[in-house]
């Protein structure tokens, strides 16, 4: 038998180790935020005092304001289109019988898997020939493409938990296919769609590698401006803009967590407790309705 010591020692050692790992994970972000409020004229930690001078400098800098405006005008259309196209694709993949569905899913997911440096170089080469390099349109199109897999992934996961028979029931009660989707399925997957939208927004706003390749001095998103400044002279203005980027991400994450909690509640209880069974209906239940329709029907 092991003595009492190791048994008490291990959990406390593990707790201390985990605390250290958490500090490792979180402290860099906290330090950027603290430095951004520094009163010192250069980058130093801990700051000698607090001030808002770097935020004031940011607000009066046309370069940074332009960059923020550029990022926002890229993010809104790209996140919107990615969410619409991604949600539609997820519904199609989950509900319709499509020949070669696995291949199509792999194609749509590919931008998430292929290293982004390859995507960036490839887009530069082709977009240049199409006259899209260095334009806002080019960046919008690029960010849309990068975000689609994340939306598809999120919505697809939600659709697996929604029983297709609900829609069939609406159809037998006389609803049109269109109406049945918007009134029955869509409200159920809405949290996931919004999650996907948040993902798409964060991906666009934080995207750097593709943007480096596709931007120009006149069309320059925040991250690219920050990238060129980080490599030159580093002053706390960068910490201020970095803090704003972090705040954007944390807000998105908080929203997503709230949505997610709503979305996966039934799943969580089914996973941890003995309540499995009826909750997993869509998977275990007998398949009836449109699913059994032979492919040749259309």
């Amino acid at each position: 038998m092991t003595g009492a010591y190791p048994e008490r020692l291990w959990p406390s050692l593990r707790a201390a180790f985990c605390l250290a790992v958490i500090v490792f994970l979180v402290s860099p972000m906290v330090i950027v935020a603290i430095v951004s409020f520094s009163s010192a004229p250069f980058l130093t930690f801990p700051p000698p005092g607090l001030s808002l001078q770097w935020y004031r400098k940011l607000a009066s800098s046309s370069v940074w304001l332009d960059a923020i405006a550029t990022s926002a005008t890229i993010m809104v259309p790209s996140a919107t289109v990615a969410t619409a196209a991604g949600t539609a694709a997820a519904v199609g993949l989950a509900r319709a019988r499509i020949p070669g569905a696995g291949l199509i899913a792999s194609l749509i997911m590919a931008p998430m898997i292929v290293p982004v440096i390859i995507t960036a170089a490839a887009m530069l080469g082709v977009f240049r020939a199409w006259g899209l390099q260095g334009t806002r349109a080019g960046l919008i199109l690029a960010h849309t493409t990068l975000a689609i897999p994340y939306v598809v992934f999120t919505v697809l996961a939600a659709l697996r938990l929604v029983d297709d028979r609900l829609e069939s029931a609406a159809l037998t009660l006389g609803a049109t296919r269109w109406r049945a989707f918007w009134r029955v399925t869509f409200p159920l997957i809405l949290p996931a769609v919004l999650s996907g939208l948040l993902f798409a927004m964060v991906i666009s706003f934080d995207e750097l590698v593709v943007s480096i390749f596709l931007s120009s001095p006149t069309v320059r998103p925040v991250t690219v401006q920050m990238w060129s400044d980080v490599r030159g002279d580093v002053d706390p203005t960068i910490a201020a803009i970095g803090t704003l980027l972090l705040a954007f991400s944390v807000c998105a994450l908080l929203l997503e967590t709230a949505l997610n909690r709503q979305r996966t509640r039934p799943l969580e209880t089914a996973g941890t407790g003995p309540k499995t069974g009826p909750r997993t209906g869509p998977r275990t239940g007998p398949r009836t309705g449109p699913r059994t329709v032979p492919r040749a029907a259309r």
Partner: protein
Amino acid sequence: MNDRGDARAWLVVPAILIVGVLFAYPVSWLLARSVTEPVVGPQNFKQLIETPVYLKALWNTILISGSVTLVCVLLGYPLAYTMAHAGERLRRLLIFVVLIPFWSSILVRTFAWMVLLQQKGLINKTLTDYLGLIDQPLTLIYNRTGVLIGMSHVLLPFMVLPLYSVLTRIEPSLTQAAASLGAPPHRNFLRIYLPLSLPGLVAGGVLVFVIGLGYYITPALLGGPGDTMIAQLIEMQIADFGNWGLAGALAVILLLGTTTTFVFVSRSLIGVR
């Protein structure tokens, strides 16, 4: 009603068009450069193999990614274990803490490490001035140490999250049974718990390794001249030399390394039909 069922298949068309035209076509175009530029033939791959600088960058890429994977396993396993066995509130808090870096900009996080690791940064200041442990500041940035610290920080969530999801599914009665049969804790862990957690460990490890292979921003900002990885080489070939053929060849190698490893585990990770 029934014949409308397949009309929903058309919903995938917009996404296919966007990804096909704006992603698949450009990537194929780039990969094709490897054997068509400047002339048709394998000259670019030949040049890659014969140039020591390029070979060293390929080796660096594998070595750095491998080391980062190891660091992430060592840091991530205890954290994932604690998350899986914590109470509801602590668990939610820990998941949130792991997700913050997951969601925040890689550039901002790398910048944070530049602030922390520099010659007069917080870490060196603590070691020299506050604690007096060392006289000379350590060189923590623009070398391998900086790259490993920065990349482990960025990639740790990719290790912790898949591992955590596997650990929560391990039946507690199995380790309880082993304990009641007299297995001491370390043996119980090594013989029962660790083998059961292996799928999560492999999934997380492969994910970290594969994502690490293609990393660009973190090594570019925190590494030195000796830490050039394949992604930086691709950028250099295009931006500095306009050598699309060699860039294409490097892309082929990176993509082969990534996809073969990823396809290996993707079925269990994504679960797409």
